[in-house]
């Protein structure tokens, strides 16, 4: 069994992993990028266009992955780390391909999964036709086949976020703006359909988000109703009957829609299995808890093991990339001090 030696092992070939790998390589450290799937890009591959300016997601993934090729950074695809243990300050990682890698530092870029809404059965995911998640909608938009010509589509915010009943208390930050983006895309797809967003709070917090929201209202006539979807049933014509409380009008409300899009939240991706001696502290929402969230957001409770991107919590793509670059700096500092 060959033992490979690197200064840094980056686990997770998504946008964060790629960005960190390029930066680390630039600062001269020997780095390897490990990705479980056949392809780099992680979750961003599932998206067709990204907010706030409808830029194709593939453009971001391609530009980052071409950097990797240009710098000839070693990438191990279809490889997942099965066990990590530390010995005298370095880390030994075993992979499912039988490799053993020794590294001074490990950078976790394992990212996130989207919430499986079948746990929220009252929304009828998998039970009723035409109930799909935002990611599934994005696939259909990519291949521009949505199968039905709807009269009315509803997008439900906070599915698997800010919901104690499915044990997901945190806010996933990006679903609100994605909902508005997808609403606009749907409106362009079906000009005379009525698109409704059902929200509790609309968190359009970053640059260009509020303008996108305003544009959605004014140019595209997207409707926003403040009320959390309580339950969804089928009527005899197989339309989805939604029951909400329009909390601003202070009245219960019933409406039928042809398609229901669930804006699924983010949850932490499964971390590789660590030896008992290594403790990686988790925050309440299951993502990694940085040792110092202000001054050193990329460190973990275990020295030498760093985290970047959505591994430490939901982020937009912009935030993920800048976080990955800051992580590479943290790793370099650590390596220089050693």
């Amino acid at each position: 069994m060959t033992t490979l030696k690197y200064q840094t092992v980056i686990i997770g070939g998504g946008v964060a992993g790629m960005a960190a790998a390029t930066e680390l390589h630039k600062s001269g450290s020997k780095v390897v990028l490990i990705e479980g799937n056949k392809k780099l890009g992680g979750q961003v591959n599932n998206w067709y266009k990204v907010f706030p300016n409808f830029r194709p997601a593939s453009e971001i993934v391609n530009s980052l992955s071409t950097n990797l090729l240009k710098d000839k950074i070693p990438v191990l695809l279809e490889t997942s780390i099965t066990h990590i243990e530390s010995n005298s300050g370095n880390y030994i990682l075993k992979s499912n391909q039988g490799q053993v890698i020794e590294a001074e530092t490990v950078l976790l870029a394992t990212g996130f999964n989207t919430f499986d809404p079948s746990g929220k059965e009252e929304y009828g995911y998998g039970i009723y036709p035409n109930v799909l998640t935002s990611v599934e909608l994005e696939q259909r938009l990519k291949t521009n086949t949505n199968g039905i010509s709807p009269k009315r589509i509803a997008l439900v915010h906070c599915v698997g976020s800010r919901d104690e009943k499915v044990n997901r208390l945190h806010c996933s930050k990006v679903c609100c703006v994605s909902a508005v983006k997808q609403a606009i895309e749907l409106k362009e797809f079906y000009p005379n359909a009525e698109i409704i967003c059902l929200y509790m709070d609309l968190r359009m917090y970053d640059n260009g988000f509020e303008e996108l929201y305003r544009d959605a209202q004014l140019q595209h006539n997207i409707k926003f109703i403040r009320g959390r979807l309580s339950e969804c049933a089928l009527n005899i014509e197989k339309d989805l009957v939604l029951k909400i409380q329009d909390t601003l009008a202070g009245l219960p409300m019933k409406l039928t829609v042809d398609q229901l899009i669930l804006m699924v939240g983010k949850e932490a991706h499964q971390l590789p299995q660590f030896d008992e001696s290594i403790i990686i502290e988790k925050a309440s929402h299951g993502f990694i808890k940085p040792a110092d969230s202000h001054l050193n957001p990329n460190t973990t409770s275990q020295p030498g093991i760093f985290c970047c991107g959505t591994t430490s919590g939901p982020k937009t793509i912009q935030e993920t990339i800048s976080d990955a670059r800051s992580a590479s700096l943290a790793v370099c500092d650590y390596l220089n001090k050693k």
Partner: protein
Amino acid sequence: MNDIEKNVWRKYQKNIADDNYFFVRSCIRQNFFPASEQAFLKIMRNVLGKNVIEDPKHTTCAGIGYHSDVVTFDTLQTIMGRHFSLMTEAGIKNVAISCVTSFGLYSEVLETWKHFPKELEKTRDYLYKATGRTFEIPENIAHCSDIIYKFRNEIAQKATRKLVNAETGEPLSIVDHIGCHYSKIFPEYGEGGAEFPQVLTGMVSAWGGNSVDYPERRHCCGFGFRQYLVQANRGYSVSNTYKKLVSMEPYKPDFIVSNCPGCTMFMDKWQYTISEMEHKTFGDGNQGVPVLTYEEMAGLILGYNPWDLGLQMHQVSVEPLLKKMGIPYDESLKFADKNGHKSSVPFQPSYIL
């Protein structure tokens, strides 16, 4: 039922005892649907050959009083403690509860004792002081519909008829209504959980019928004690039934089956009130939608005489359904007593019901 419903349902599998039950009667079902409990005992003992014990000293579970804020929770626990002591005396470990409201209360009391042992001690102390009795907690709690559901296939074999339309052979489309206290308070106490309870749908599909999934399926039938007891709220109670009936109307259900005394009673009686108030009737031929208890449904397919099942006491006449199912009945004996004498015929309302 597609696979998600299945694996959601699989999460809520109950183990139901298969013999030696202590039968806890309901206090109001005798006068709502008199023969239902009798039919349950007949089916359990004669058809299934099970051992079902009853104890005359058994009283009401005080559910109506408790839900109307007349009976305190401590009194309720003590009464239930007394019933358990009757069971301990009879040496029976499994209880079969006839009414959904008391089933809800029994599960509530047992859950309270599980999480707050002090309450259990307190109840034991009260019971001993009041009656000198002690009791053990029964091993298996089941509602009678759970048990009928458990032996639905055995009943199906013994059945002489199916839930199908006699002429067309089409399966009857049947609306099932589960009493809210059955599984909405403690989903794991209900067969199939809160969203997709299987207890009645299982019977309907086992006996050849089709169960209907209409939007207001999980909506409350309006029976709520504090709604129908107080006249000021009664309008709210009938509006709930109205909402359900309007929602199921497009599906043209042949009849409604329920496992709770209150739901069966009110969905049946309110149809008359609605027809008087609003001149609106439901069901095909505007003859109203008959409402049966699951024991009556079981009795029909087992070939019992409709009048023995007490179907003549229903507000919505069941005759059109009997014709549809091809079940013979003797019109003249409708209101005759056990040995054939016709005593008196109740007032026939002007409307269909």
